[in-house]
C-alpha cells in the first residue's frame, strides 16, 4: 500500500484516482504508524514551501519521512513535494527542507512567464526504470513558480526547458522527484506512476 501524505495542500484526490486506475492501493494519511507500515510514500503538494514544512513539523512528520526515506522505502515527491526533498528553498526567504537530496530551490527566471503553467517536454538524460516505456521529449503538465536550482548531476533523469534548464525528474536510490504532475499528464503521467508502482516490493 502507498501512503499519500495529507498535510492540507492541493488536489490529492486526482492522485488517488490515478493510482486506483493503475490498481495501486493507496491511502491518504498523516498517521505515523500507517506511514511506517506502508510499502511506499508519496509526498504531494502545491502551495508555499514554508507553509508545507511548517505543516509537516506540526504533524511531527519530518523525522518520520527522513527515517522512512533512509530505510530505503520508495518515496516520490510531486511538484512542491519534490522541492521539499532538497536542503534549502529561497521561496520568500530561506527555509530548510528535508535534505534528502543535495541542492536548493529558487524562483524561475523572470525572463519567462511565472508560474510555468502547461504542457512541456521532458528530455531524458539517462536510462532509469522510472522512465520505462516513456518516450524522450514526451509532454507532461507543469504548474510551478519555483524550481530546483542546484543539484547533483548524477540525480538528473529528465529536464525541461523554461527560462533555462529545469530538473523535471530526479532520482537518488529510493528517492524520486517529479516537478510536474504525473496524475495530470495523461498517458505519460500514468506510465510514470505505474513505473513507481513497479519499484514497490
Amino acid at each position: 500500500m502507498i501512503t499519500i501524505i495529507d498535510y492540507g495542500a492541493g488536489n490529492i484526490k486526482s492522485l488517488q484516482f490515478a493510482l486506483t486506475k493503475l490498481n495501486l492501493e493507496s491511502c491518504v494519511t498523516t498517521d505515523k504508524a500507517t506511514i511506517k507500515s506502508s510499502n511506499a510514500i508519496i509526498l504531494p503538494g502545491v502551495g508555499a514551501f514554508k507553509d508545507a514544512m511548517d505543516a509537516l513539523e506540526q504533524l511531527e512528520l519530518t523525522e518520520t519521512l527522513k527515517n522512512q526515506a533512509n530505510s530505503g522505502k520508495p518515496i516520490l515527491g510531486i511538484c512542491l513535494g519534490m522541492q521539499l526533498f532538497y536542503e534549502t528553498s529561497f521561496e520568500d526567504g530561506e527555509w530548510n527542507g528535508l535534505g534528502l537530496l543535495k541542492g536548493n530551490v529558487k524562483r524561475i527566471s523572470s525572463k519567462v512567464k511565472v508560474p510555468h503553467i502547461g504542457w512541456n517536454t521532458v528530455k531524458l538524460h539517462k536510462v532509469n526504470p522510472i522512465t520505462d516505456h516513456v518516450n524522450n521529449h514526451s509532454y507532461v503538465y507543469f504548474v510551478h513558480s519555483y524550481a530546483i536550482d542546484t543539484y547533483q548531476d548524477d540525480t538528473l533523469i529528465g529536464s525541461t526547458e523554461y527560462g533555462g534548464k529545469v530538473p523535471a525528474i530526479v532520482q537518488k536510490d529510493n528517492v524520486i522527484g517529479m516537478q510536474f504532475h504525473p496524475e495530470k499528464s495523461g498517458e505519460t503521467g500514468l506510465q510514470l506512476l505505474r513505473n513507481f508502482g513497479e519499484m514497490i516490493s
Partner: protein
Amino acid sequence: MLAKRIIPCLDVDKGRVVKGKKFQNIRDVADPVELAQRYNQAGADELVFYDITASNEDRNIFLDVVEKVAAEIAIPFTVGGGIRTIVDVHSVLRSGADKVSINSAAVTNPDFIQEAAWKFGSQCIVLSIDAKKTAPEQWQVYINGGRKNTGIDAIEWAKQGEKLGAGEIVINAIDVDGEKNGYNIELTKAIAQSVNIPIVASGGAGINDHFVSVLQEGNADAALAASVFHYGEIQISELKNHLYGNGITVRRGN
C-alpha cells in the same frame, strides 16, 4: 518547449452540460463526465467547467460531477461560476479540481484573490475577466454575466490581478463572444503585454485560423472555446495539426 493549450469549456447546469442560448436543437451534449472523457481522448490540454446553477442543492450535484470528472480524466481542469468564498474554493479543490476561476467576486472584493492565492497557491487561482470595448483601445470590466459595467479598465484590472496573486488570466471578450468571427486579438495582446502570467483567450472562436491568430498575434498562451467543440465543428486533433502546420508548438496525441 512549452506548448500552447487548447481548452474546451463546458457550462454545467444541474449536473448536465447545457448549450448556449443561440443553439436550440442540440441534444447529444449532455453528460459532463462523458464529454470530459471524449475531450481528454481527443487531445484537449485542459478543461473548464462553469457551474451555472444557483441553488445550494444544485451546487452539491455539481461538486459530485467535479469528483466524477477527476476520477475519469488525467488532464487538469478548472472550475468556475459562483466561486465567492474561501470555503467555495476549498470544496471545489477538495472535490478534485486543479484550479478555480474567479470573476465577479474578485471585482467586488479584490482581497479575495489575495487570500485565495495565499491559502491555496497562485497556481490554482485563475482571474476571469469579462471585458467589453467602450472606446478605441479601451476595454472595461463587466460583471454579473456581462450585465453590469464596473467602469474598471480591463488592462489595469489584469495588472492588479497579477499583483494580488492570480496565477493565470482568462480574458473573455464580450463583444465577440458567440459570434464565431474570431477572438479579440487586440484586447488579448494588450493584456498579454501588460502582465507576466499566462493568458487564456476566450470568446469568438469559429474556425481553425482564429486559434492561429490569437495564439500568434494575440500572444495568448491558451485558447478556450465551447460550441465549436461541442457541436463537432472543430475537431481538436485536426485543430492541433493545423496549429502545428502553422509553426505553433502544440502537444499532439496523448
